[in-house]
């Protein structure tokens, strides 16, 4: 199968098979777990602000933004096997970018700042990917993780030292985001906006990953060499998904900046990168919903526990993470989801193929 990085053309027969309603029924039974889970979570998230008190809704909004951020890490680590330990770089850069737009240029319109943040994340990730992933020698996982980690650490240091960016204190009191003449402050309105963006990006990612591009990525994660032998340009695939994930992190970062009303250096640095790794590993990398569930559980637990056990909560979190890595390497999601669901599928089932074979 010949293909270039961007234009992976599936053979027509496969497309037809994927679209045929027959296929959906062929996977009836256990296959339905994932959509049910997704739908249940969506319904729960939609009615949450109606039953929760306001201050919890504000907290839930932050969790949703972090879910978006977790999605971006899940795309690179869970699907392409790129261990990006500096995902916060794109999150924080976009946050700082929109904060500067707001402070220095008075731009607060959602139609300007969100695209700007997304673009910052995308371009930064593309540049970093171009350096770390492309080139004559294929990069080792260790090198990429080290390179991204160094990027986040360097950005953190520079922001701390920069007077223009507010040094240690960051940039405080950002103006609220506006839609037309309406000012968007934290609360149910902001919550539903974030939820809508999250659902939209989730669906787009889901669509992308269930395409042949996504399957090629999953194959790359499982056995990079074999995918390369099939003729895919492995490094290009990786760079593309890395840039996309940077864009998503950028969206999350700009939302976070406006929701919190300030940006500070932790958004850029190792602290935030660690968080996002935690979320995704905990929930289950390699499924989009796993990243969302992981974020919700970790943040939810920390909301309830950190009041009473503030000091030992991070330690508990570390222990939980270690236990998950040791005994549930695919995350909590693997308790309810089979391996087949996780890897994804494309084309007719094996049984069907055998029958159809001439």
């Amino acid at each position, binding site marked *: 199968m010949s293909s270039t990085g961007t234009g992976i053309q599936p053979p027509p027969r496969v497309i037809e098979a994927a679209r045929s309603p027959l296929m959906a029924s062929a996977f009836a039974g256990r296959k339905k777990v994932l959509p049910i889970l997704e739908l249940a979570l969506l319904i729960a998230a939609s009615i949450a602000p109606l039953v929760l008190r306001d201050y919890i809704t504000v907290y839930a909004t932050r969790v949703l933004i972090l879910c978006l951020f977790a999605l971006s890490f899940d795309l690179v680590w869970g699907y392409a096997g790129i261990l990006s330990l500096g995902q916060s770089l794109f999150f924080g850069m976009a946050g700082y970018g929109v904060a500067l737009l707001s402070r220095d240029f008075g731009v607060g319109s959602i139609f300007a700042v969100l695209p700007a943040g997304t673009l910052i994340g995308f371009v930064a990730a593309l540049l970093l990917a171009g350096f770390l992933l492309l080139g004559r020698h294929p990069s080792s996982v260790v090198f990429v993780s080290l390179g991204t980690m*160094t990027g986040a650490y360097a950005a953190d240091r520079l922001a701390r030292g920069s007077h223009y960016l507010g040094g240690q204190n960051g940039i405080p009191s950002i103006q609220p985001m506006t839609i037309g003449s309406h000012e968007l402050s934290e609360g149910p309105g902001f919550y539903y906006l974030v939820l809508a963006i999250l659902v939209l990006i989730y669906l787009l990612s889901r669509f992308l990953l269930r395409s042949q591009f996504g399957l090629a990525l999953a194959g790359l994660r499982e056995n990079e060499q074999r995918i390369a032998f099939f003729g895919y340009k492995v490094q290009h695939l990786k760079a593309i998904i890395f840039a996309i994930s940077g864009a998503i992190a950028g969206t999350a970062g700009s939302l976070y900046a406006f929701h919190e009303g300030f940006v500070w250096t932790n958004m850029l640095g190792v602290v935030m990168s660690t968080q996002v790794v935690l979320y995704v590993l905990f929930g289950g990398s390699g499924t989009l919903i796993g990243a969302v569930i992981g974020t919700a559980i970790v943040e939810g637990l920390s909301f309830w526990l950190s009041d009473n056990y503030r000091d030992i909560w991070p330690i508990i979190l570390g222990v939980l993470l270690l236990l998950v890595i040791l005994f549930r390497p695919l995350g909590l999601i693997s308790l309810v989801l089979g391996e087949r669901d996780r890897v994804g599928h494309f084309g007719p089932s094996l049984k069907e193929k055998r029958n159809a074979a001439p």
Partner: protein
Amino acid sequence: MDTLLIAMFEILSFGAIVVLVVLGLGIIASMMGIFNFAQGEFVLLGAYVTYLVHSLGLPVPLGMLVAPVAVGALGFVLEKVVVRRFYAAPIVAMLGTYALGLIIREAVRGLTGGLYLSVPEPISGSIMIGGLHFAAWRSVIVIITLLVMAASHALLAHTSFGLRVRASLENPQLARASGISTGMIYSVTFAFGAALAGLAGALIVPVFSLFADLGIRFLIQGFVAVMVGGVGSFAGPVAGASVIGTFSAWLPWLMSPVIADVLVFVLAIIFIKFRPQGLISGRGVNR
């Protein structure tokens, strides 16, 4: 001339610190093929143990003796309980040791209350050589680093234990068939690497003071140094550490410390990009 000598000494002593930190990391990475993300926290733990002994009213040098033993013992246990499960999957090992590091770091943060705590230098003052003052404790660090380096090299290259370590690395099946307990060798090697980190932490805590994020900085520095030097040999990480240490100490004389700090890492990453095998490519013992 005098300032030049003083500067040279600064660079030498800082380089020695980096070498000390990297040595354990390099041994674990080269000999076991595992990138130990908890290594920075082993350094932190060594520093903490020293502080603990000091705060009990006991002399600081005693703490510095206890630290490597305590951290080494912990490393031994962790290898037996946790790290050993990761040998089949080096990437999972990175995540697993990362989690271990997180636990240690947060535990120390809880214990120190997030404060910067200082430990006095066991040997204070300075040594006069030819009319120039050299900080005594930093001189001691340089000397101890040289001794530790020589001892580690002798241990790995010239003893029967070292031979067994290298055998277990190069061909585990054959080593086991020859009656070497590879499991035990791995445990001891990991403990040894941890103990070196503990010693490093103990020695540098008077210079840097103790705080929970002490390890992170050294972790990145250590990894960069190992990659620059080259994984797989004994000399590689040491060479990398010397280079990184020299640049880290030298560049702040030319530009603002923040820029220098970042520039060292960026230059190192660029170097690794174009020479992935490092300064000294592994001779037979890489994997």
